[in-house]
């Protein structure tokens, strides 16, 4: 297993750097890696241990299929252009994951198992059919399965499910080791990664004659920086607020159920187009079941606590979709803190009002985090061939006017 060594994370904090990244989740670690290999001087500061928040507590699934929350409700024609952009990013993310173990020379537990998105009603099936057309057009391979075809392909699904889409490139990786592997390679490439260094505030300097625009005040001193990246996940808005920035993000606790290991029942990752369910049987036979059920907020550093009804409600949907799960025993539950944006789009880019201050938070951040990190790094090193879309700007107004609809992945 590729992990950064303790002594590498505990050294002195530099006093000056080109880029300072706040937050040692997957976003921060992956960005530090891509910047460092591009030769950029970078310091990453994490308040606790690396990868202990969303990036180390998520379900590790790749969600490449268009999810219902990506639809604005304005109709397929209105959404088409934007969805095609999304699909292109998603299929690039898929190729990137296929290659990531080689790139990092590390076992990340990548399993390409394929993924099903199931529908319970004809209306839901209709959405699947429409979305599949857009996916095809955007270059993501998916197919619609119904009737006997679905039964044969996925005999473990409840018989009365009307259909599903199948995406062969979906699957999962091990979230417990992915960000640390990025961090270890970032350190090799020259990044300074420091843990147990909370950042208190980012102070803007009026006088940039020395080249620095910011002073990053942290628990062990101060650090001058030309550019700052806020990759503090669910806590990013707290950090940004002091600089007068209001990020379109909120923190939410998400619930996951874990079962005892069982003989192989299913291979693909399974999700539901209209209900809160993601489920898979991991390599060791345990089922990981989530889908966006809420957990109760607790003040950091306490872990979010479990809502009993999230455990039982999530279990009900799981049994509804895969009836054979009824006698499989739940042995553990956990809750992670997720940074959601109102429109579910990434919040990535430089703030026009605060040049040099970047935000990097991606809601489906396990799936898309590595890709977005590489794009942002290219943009920051002025070597970009694909620009991060303007819709992702931290300064944007949400795509869904009024933020009337909010969605949660899992």
């Amino acid at each position, binding site marked *: 297993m590729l*992990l950064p060594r303790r002594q590498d994370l505990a050294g002195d904090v530099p006093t000056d750097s080109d880029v300072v990244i706040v937050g040692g989740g997957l976003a921060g670690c992956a960005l530090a890696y891509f910047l460092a290999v591009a030769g950029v001087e970078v310091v990453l500061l994490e308040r606790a241990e690396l990868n202990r928040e969303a990036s180390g507590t998520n379900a590790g699934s790749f969600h490449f299929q268009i999810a219902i929350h990506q639809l604005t409700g304005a109709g397929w024609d209105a959404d088409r252009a934007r969805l095609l952009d999304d699909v292109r990013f998603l299929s690039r993310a898929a190729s990137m994951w296929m290659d990531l173990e080689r790139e990092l020379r590390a076992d990340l537990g990548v399993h390409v198992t394929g993924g099903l998105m199931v529908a319970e009603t004809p209306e839901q099936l209709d959405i699947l059919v429409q979305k599949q057309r857009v996916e095809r057009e955007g270059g993501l391979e998916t197919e619609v399965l119904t009737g006997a075809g679905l039964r044969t392909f996925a005999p473990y699904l409840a018989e009365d499910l009307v259909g599903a889409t199948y995406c062969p490139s979906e699957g999962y990786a091990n979230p417990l080791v992915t960000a*640390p592997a990025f961090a270890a390679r970032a350190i090799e490439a020259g990044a300074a990664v420091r843990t147990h260094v909370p950042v208190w505030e980012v102070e803007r300097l009026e006088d940039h004659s020395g080249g620095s625009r910011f002073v990053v005040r942290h628990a062990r001193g101060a650090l001058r920086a030309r550019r700052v990246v806020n990759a503090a996940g669910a806590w990013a808005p707290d950090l940004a607020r002091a600089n007068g920035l209001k990020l379109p993000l909120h923190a939410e606790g998400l619930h996951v159920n874990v079962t005892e290991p069982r003989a192989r029942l299913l291979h693909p990752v399974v999700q539901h187009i209209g209900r809160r369910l993601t489920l898979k049987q991991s390599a060791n036979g345990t089922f990981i079941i989530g889908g966006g059920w809420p957990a109760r907020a607790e003040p950091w550093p306490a872990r979010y606590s479990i809502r009993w009804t999230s455990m039982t409600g999530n279990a009900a*949907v799981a*049994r509804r979709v895969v009836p054979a*799960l009824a006698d499989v*025993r739940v*042995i553990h539950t956990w809750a992670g803190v997720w940074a959601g944006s109102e429109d579910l789009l990434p919040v990535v880019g430089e703030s026009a009002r605060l040049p040099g201050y970047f935000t990097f938070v991606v809601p489906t951040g396990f799936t898309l985090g590595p890709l977005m990190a590489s794009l942002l790094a290219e943009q920051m090193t002025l070597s970009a061939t694909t620009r991060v879309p303007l819709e992702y700007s931290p300064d944007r107004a949400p795509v869904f006017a009024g933020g009337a609809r909010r969605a949660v992945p899992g």
Partner: protein
Amino acid sequence: MDLFVVGGGPAGLSAAGEAARHGLRVVLVDERVTLGGQIYRQPGPGFVVRDARRVGRDYQRGVALVDAALRAGAELRCRTSVLSLRGTTAACLTEGRGHVTLIRARRVLVAPGASDRPVPFPGWTLPGVVTAGGAQALVKASRVAPGSRLVFAGSGPLALAFPAQLRHLGVHVVLALEAGPMPRVRHLARILAAGWGNAALLRDALSYRAQLVEARVPLRYARAVVRAEGEDRVEAVVHAAVDADWRVIPGTEERLDADTLCVGYGFVPSTELLRLAGCRFTYDEDLGGLVVEVDAWQRTSAEGVSAAGDGTGVRGAPAALGQGRLAALGAAADLGAITQARADELARPVRRRLAAKERFRRALLPLYAVGAGIYELASPETVVCRCEEVTLARLEEVMEATLDVDAVKSYTRAGMGLCQGRNCQRQVSALLTRRRGPSTYAAPSLSVTAGSAVALSEEQLATLAGTTPRPPVRPAPIGVLADDSVPDQGLFVGG
């Protein structure tokens, strides 16, 4: 309901009876098939088997407790496990029922008892290695004696009892090892001085000793098992002399053929429910490790939640009985069923007896205080986490990357399996605390001056407890947990 009691051992039963006598409406649940807890459950080759009279005595006590509770009006339910506790609401699952029941009470008493202290050493996962509790269960369930040449290794007053009992069942006990020192005159003087009011305990201890002598079972002090050897099961046991901290003295190893190794290094309190309830803890290795903080009426720091018995620190059945009564009297007074003055009056003799027991326990500590060496026996290949098959070498490798208990767990998966860390956590935290050095953690009282609990910071608690407490505390089928009435707003949360 006024009082909900988790656990039908001496602590829970005595509390249920006492509370019901003062007019509280009481429900008690226990996940086992029978009531009585560890010691008072059904007759048979249980804890004290010298003769039928003794077996009968414990059984009779159990029956008496159950009868008294029932007569006073308490409702007792077996085969019902408590999966979760939040505030004073408990989620219960009764075997054979297809759903979970939520029970709300004005007060909750958690009396879940204790389980064997897990001690990893090379070979501890070989078939033929059993824990003292496991051996007893085996004997009870099947009436089959474990093995034909048995070595017992362990410590504590009960460690004497086990070989004596097993011997009595026809098991050929070839050697008994006590890690603590040979009792000296000064120890005995202290024990005798504390013996006042504890005649029964003293008599038991002496009788176990006498039984071993009579049966010619060699009992060797200051020695511990260092390794079990064998291909597919135990064939030999290697043991060695240990120093005052139970650290192995090199060059003192001896090897003995045996087909069974029974290990009994005492017990650790069951803390899952109390941790879920958010109670404050202290640390005392000699009481089993994590010990919930309670006041004079057994109330924890969590509103409405009390705790009693071995689950609050392993002190044995007589103390559990007393604590259960105190908890009941406290609840009765709190809920206005009796006056505070009446509670004080009824509690007085109970407190006197508990104080005597505690004196005795402390007098025994110099003999049985748990030594740190017990957590240093594993070799690199030793599988520390059996569920996820994580070796010591793997743990040590990861500890080069981090000394954070959560991170170690997530990198190695140790503690993520079926037992949820019950078997490996103590070893993992011992490894962590050793690396962090004494300055960064309050050294758990692994010393002869034990008996003084150490207050824990959040971080220390996390390190020692390992896992964040999460429901369900017992495995529960998805089909039983599933609740179709919980609204699923789908992926859109209306705003």
